[in-house]
C-alpha cells in the first residue's frame, strides 16, 4: 500500500474494456514525510476521493482485477482508503 495525494483526473475515450465506467484519477505517490516519490500514477477510484485529498493506494493486481471484475484487466493501482 502507498500513501498518495490526488492531484487531478484524466479523461479517456479509448481504453481497455475493463476500465469502462471507472473514475480515473491522477495520484502523486508520497514518501513518509509527504514528499513526492516517483512519477504520478493513473488510479481507478470507487470511493469518491476528492481532488487534493490524501489517499491510500494499493498496487495489488489481483485485488484490482477482482474490483473491476475482469481477470484480463491491465489495471493495477486503485484507491483503497481515505485516511482521516
Amino acid at each position, binding site marked *: 500500500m502507498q500513501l498518495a*495525494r*490526488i*492531484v*487531478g*483526473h*484524466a*479523461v*479517456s*475515450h*479509448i*481504453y*481497455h474494456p475493463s*476500465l469502462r465506467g471507472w473514475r*480515473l484519477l*491522477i495520484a*502523486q505517490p*508520497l514518501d513518509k514525510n509527504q514528499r*513526492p516519490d516517483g*512519477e*504520478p*500514477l*493513473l*488510479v481507478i477510484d470507487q470511493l469518491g476521493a476528492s*481532488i*487534493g485529498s490524501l489517499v491510500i493506494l494499493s498496487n495489488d*493486481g489481483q485485488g*484490482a*482485477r477482482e474490483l473491476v471484475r475482469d*481477470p*484480463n*484487466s*491491465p*489495471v*493495477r*493501482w486503485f484507491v483503497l482508503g481515505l485516511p482521516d
Partner: protein
Amino acid sequence: MRIAQVIGQITLSRPHPTLTSGRFLIAMPISLRALSTTMQPDGEEIIVWDDLGAGLTCWIGVSEGVEATMPFRPDRKPIDAYCACLLDHLYLDEQATREVLS
C-alpha cells in the same frame, strides 16, 4: 498505470513468436513537476505494446509489470508495458499540485 507520451515506434525484425503481430511504441513517462509546467516528458523511455492505435505525441496510460500480460491471458507474452488507455484530457488542480511540489 503511469502517464507517458508516445515519442516513436519500433518494428521488430526477429521477434519472439508470440510478439509477431504486435505494434510497439516508444513512450516516455513524465514527472509531476514536468506535467504541471512544461508538459515535456522527462522519464526513461520504455517500449509499450499497443492495441489501441496510439499515434505520435499521444498521451497514454501505461500498465507495467505482470499486469501488462493480463489482457493476453491465457496466452503468454514476454512484455512488461501495455498501453491500457489513450488520454484525451489531463486535468491538474493547481492548488493540490503546488502543495505536493512545495
